[in-house]
């Protein structure tokens, strides 16, 4: 492998995607990078809840009237969502769009009078019907709306990885906003024991250093995005517990999920799976028995202002380092 790298980036899904390719032929790598990023923007265009002409908007508007035919990749994505929804006991649910809107994360923000019934009566994944033979989706009732924000980046990375493999790329890393990452092969010039791509979970000295080599990783943190509550007394986190309709309340600072594959015939969507499960873990606060044992979970327990401890479970070797012992933190007190 050559030590040269080619970097390229694009804006999609409300963040910045970046691709790093290793190799000796920049003339070959540049169009491959562009091809892969155009795949990312393709899925942005298809899956955005905020684009009126996206296919997701089309589904949300029409699927309660008639079954909507799906392409195989999209059907695979939604089947995975249904699967994680079931395995997580409803802690992950892609039909949270009405809840997100009720809490003020999506414009237009409803009034308090409109929001309360929307929260209590949100339909949920049980109202989504996926027909495997016909490859269609149908909503059993009106008011159902998919929000794929918790899996779209991972899915775009899975699709990116499949294209990279098709081009025979042996060394690559692609990330979406640094919170969802897929790595192919090892990193050019890496000094990690396994030659993998070094990834820091969290800022500063507390960061847990992972190395990814042929794997995927997704990171979720409830404090990543917040809105002010209606009474102005609190900040509501963007990860909603679909079971209660309220923001996740578990004492989780962050959750990361890693997979040791980048997609194959058995599981084409490891990055998507990691992303769905990282959201579910923030809601659940701990790793459930039902979580696939092919996935490694890394939970940081505690809040922004208290001491945190890492909980690493699953088949983490060889692609995850031993966790750094946590250092005690001094509570910083109220923030101004």
């Amino acid at each position: 492998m050559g030590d040269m790298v080619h970097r390229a980036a694009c804006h999609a899904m409300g963040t910045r995607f970046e691709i790093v390719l290793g190799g000796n032929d920049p003339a070959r790598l540049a169009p491959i990078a562009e091809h892969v990023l155009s795949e990312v923007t393709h899925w942005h265009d298809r899956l955005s809840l905020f684009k009126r002409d996206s296919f997701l908007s089309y589904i949300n508007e029409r699927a309660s009237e008639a079954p909507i035919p799906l392409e195989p990749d999209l059907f695979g994505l939604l089947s995975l969502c249904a699967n994680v929804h079931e395995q997580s006991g409803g802690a992950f649910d892609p039909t949270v769009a009405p809840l997100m809107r009720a809490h003020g994360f999506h414009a237009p923000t409803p009034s308090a009078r409109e929001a309360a019934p929307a929260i209590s009566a949100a339909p949920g994944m049980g109202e989504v019907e996926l027909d495997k033979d016909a490859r269609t989706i149908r909503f059993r009732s009106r008011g159902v709306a998919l929000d794929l924000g918790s899996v779209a980046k991972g899915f775009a990375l899975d699709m990116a990885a499949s294209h990279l493999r098709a081009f025979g790329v042996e060394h690559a890393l692609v990330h979406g906003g640094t919170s969802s990452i897929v790595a192919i092969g090892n990193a050019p010039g890496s000094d990690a024991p396994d030659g993998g791509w070094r990834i820091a979970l969290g800022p500063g000295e507390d960061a847990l250093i992972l190395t990814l080599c042929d794997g995927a990783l997704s990171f979720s943190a409830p404090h990543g995005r917040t809105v002010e509550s209606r009474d102005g007394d609190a900040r509501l986190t963007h990860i909603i517990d679909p079971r209660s309709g309220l923001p996740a309340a578990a004492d989780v600072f962050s959750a990361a999920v890693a997979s040791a594959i980048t997609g194959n015939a058995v599981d084409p969507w490891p990055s998507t799976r990691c992303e769905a499960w990282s959201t579910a873990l923030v809601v659940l606060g701990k790793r459930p028995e039902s979580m696939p044992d092919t996935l490694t979970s890394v939970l940081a327990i505690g809040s922004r202002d208290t001491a945190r401890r890492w909980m690493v479970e699953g088949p983490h070797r060889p692609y995850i380092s031993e966790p750094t012992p946590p250092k005690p933190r001094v509570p910083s007190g109220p923030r101004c």
Partner: protein
Amino acid sequence: MHSTSEPVPGLDRRDFLLSTGAAGAAILALTPEWSFASSARAEKIGVGIVGVGRHARAIMDELAKFENVRIAALCDVVDSRLQAGLRRVQGATGYADYKEMLAKATDVSAVIVATPTHTHKDIAVAAMESGKHTFIEAPLAHTIDDCLAIARAARSSTRVVHAGLYARSNPIYKLARTFFRSDSVRDLVMMRAQSNRKSNWRVAVADAKDDKALNWRLDPEVSIGLPGEFGSHQIDVFNWYLGRYPVSVSGTGSVRLHKDGRTIPDTTHATFLFDDGARLDWSGTLANSYEGQYEVLYGSNAAIKLAWTAAWMFKEADAPTQGWEVYANRQRFHTDEGITLIADATKLASQGKLKEGVGLPNPPVYYALGDFVDAIANAKPAVVTADEGLRATAISIWANQAVLKGETVKLDVESLKV
């Protein structure tokens, strides 16, 4: 100065202004055809797509929305693309040769030509001669002779032949054109358009033997450059809005960013002149994506900006006020405020959801395909004729020649005798 106050069929200026006098009436009066769901017929239209690259993927995605369409066949000379396409479409038959598809696929009554531009002519003419309804992506072809051959075959065809110039099917563009043709901008003083993107334009190939076939845009023997591939769609907007054609074009171009041995300029500029002195400045680059793709028509009363999925009107302070504007949705652009031109505003306004109506509900390609399907299903004439495809493409080919030679080229649209 040429005025834009040309009559719109079925709506003269006086009627238009009267209809806009009452608040919201313009919106009520101008709601365009919005969905093609009503064009469904009992028998599904069997479609064959020739060229299964990335653009065909968008075509397949949008065709899936039409209940009266079935993709019956796919054709591509690159097997990996064909197989990827067949995986997406249930029940379609794959072909490597379009002639074989035309001969054997008896369930195909309509053909969509989405291959590289320089291959359009042979495929499109063969499809038309086989009695198929034919949709030809724009630009129509890479030479004027090929464009003429397509237009002549279309004249001889008894089927629907639709040139894929998307603006003419776009509800927002149709709405904005109604404003333009009804004198909302008053005297047209100048026009501007750009197509900016950050792109290498070199296609990644998994197999080196496919490089020449897939990187045709960078092949000087067949490429018509940025003016052709991007400009033809935009030039057609002005052809359609003005109802006339430019008489000369001058241009410049160079490789500013992608200095990898290519000779096709990655940054170009062309100036089109009309017989009354009006000017259209068009530029395109692969080195910067700022503001993407848009067209602007500047008049003495207002400017109209068209950006494919949205459009705005920017009024001068001294322009007369029309009642409906008070209720219109507006967007701020630095120091200017644009009135958003919303295609299905009537319905949205009645639901109190006008702000949610900014932008198209479907990608522009959906509406172009919808017009094609609707014409077949309901035995209507094509919305965009091959003749218009010929004229827009010929002007863009001439513009590319002006860019490559750095000189002024006379545009004699009247000489394009079909």
